[in-house]
């Protein structure tokens, strides 16, 4: 490295130093420390004591850990496919050139602007078994015994899934952007070949936006596995009967309620491994169904 190059490097680093220092102090260091803590007995009140893999071994024998993992996985299995399909279907509908397109687009995106806590408050109200708007509507439709939603262990998780679908607008926007890039000549060719509406969707549109679908799948995968804020506010302690006690809620309780920072950190690292594995599987399958134009 010449003298000028070195001087340029130092200048460059100096310019990005506000970000660099912030990143190292508030992201990199905590990440490294959390791995160290996951190997320790650490109550936050006394200095950490190295214990090896004990935290991980304890978690493997902890029924609450497996229960919370199951809740998160069940939520993901419901919310992920439903959200993906709804967002894709909506963006296809919103891409049709019809009167009022911008009005429809605005209404679909509107809920995404509501902050998480406000969203939780509205839906707590709507889901109220006796006074809530949803059950009132269901009774009007002739269902005399509507579900208790968040008060019923069988319905609380589906209720959270339905609520998550309300925020589908963000994903729809990304799909819509992708749909604008589908080459028109492919549709013209399909028209000439006499392809119908659905043939065009399955043989032109979906393959053309498959990179966008893949992107949304990865983002949604990470988001659903990390689901925390809404159940934490709406169903404290996973009420009723721990039916909505998400993985992240147990992680939070371990770290900050029971002051077992070591075990909390271990859970965080296990979660990272789970997300890495799932995204790894998604990447592996993507070779078969994601098509990049120009390659």
């Amino acid at each position, binding site marked *: 490295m010449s003298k000028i190059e070195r001087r340029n490097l130092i200048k460059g680093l100096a310019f990005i130093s506000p970000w660099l220092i912030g990143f190292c102090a508030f992201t990199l260091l905590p990440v490294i420390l959390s791995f160290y803590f996951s190997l320790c007995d650490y109550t936050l009140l006394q200095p950490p004591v190295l214990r090896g893999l004990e935290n991980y071994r304890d978690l493997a024998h902890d029924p609450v850990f497996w229960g919370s993992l199951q809740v998160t996985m069940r939520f993901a299995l419901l919310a992920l496919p439903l959200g993906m399909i709804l967002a894709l279907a*909506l963006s296809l*509908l*919103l891409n*049709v050139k*019809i009167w*009022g397109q911008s009005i*429809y687009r605005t*209404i*679909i995106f*509107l*809920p995404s602007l*509501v902050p998480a806590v*406000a969203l939780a408050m*509205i*839906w707590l*109200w*709507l889901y109220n078994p006796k*006074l809530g*708007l949803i059950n*009132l509507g269901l009774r009007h439709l002739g269902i005399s015994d509507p579900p208790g939603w968040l008060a019923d262990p069988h319905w609380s998780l589906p209720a959270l899934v339905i609520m998550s679908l*309300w925020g589908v607008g963000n994903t729809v926007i990304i799909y819509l952007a992708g749909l604008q890039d589908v080459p028109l000549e492919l549709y013209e060719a399909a028209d000439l070949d*006499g392809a119908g*509406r659905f043939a065009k969707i399955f043989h032109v549109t979906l393959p053309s936006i498959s990179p966008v679908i893949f992107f949304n799948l990865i983002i949604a995968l990470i988001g659903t596995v990390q689901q925390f804020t809404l159940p934490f506010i709406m169903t404290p302690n996973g009420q009723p009967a721990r039916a909505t006690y998400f993985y992240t809620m147990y992680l939070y309780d371990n770290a900050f309620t029971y002051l077992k920072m070591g075990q909390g950190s271990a859970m965080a690292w296990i979660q990272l491994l789970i997300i890495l594995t799932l995204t790894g599987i998604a990447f592996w399958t993507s070779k078969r169904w994601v098509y990049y134009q120009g390659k």
Partner: protein
Amino acid sequence: MSMASAQEEKKRGRFETHAALILICVLMIVPFLWMLSTSLKTLDKTMEFPPRWWPRPIAFSNYWYSTLR
């Protein structure tokens, strides 16, 4: 396929798109309008049963309270 039936199919497709979008948009906007309606109610009126869409009286006090205080 003749020209006329292609036109007809296009029209039907448009109608179906409108129908699907209107249904979903109504479902999407109800919670939002409910938030708006509740924000204009006094505290005792928020618990009213059966719930009212149009607050009576329309109270802006929540907005004054949360911005000016």
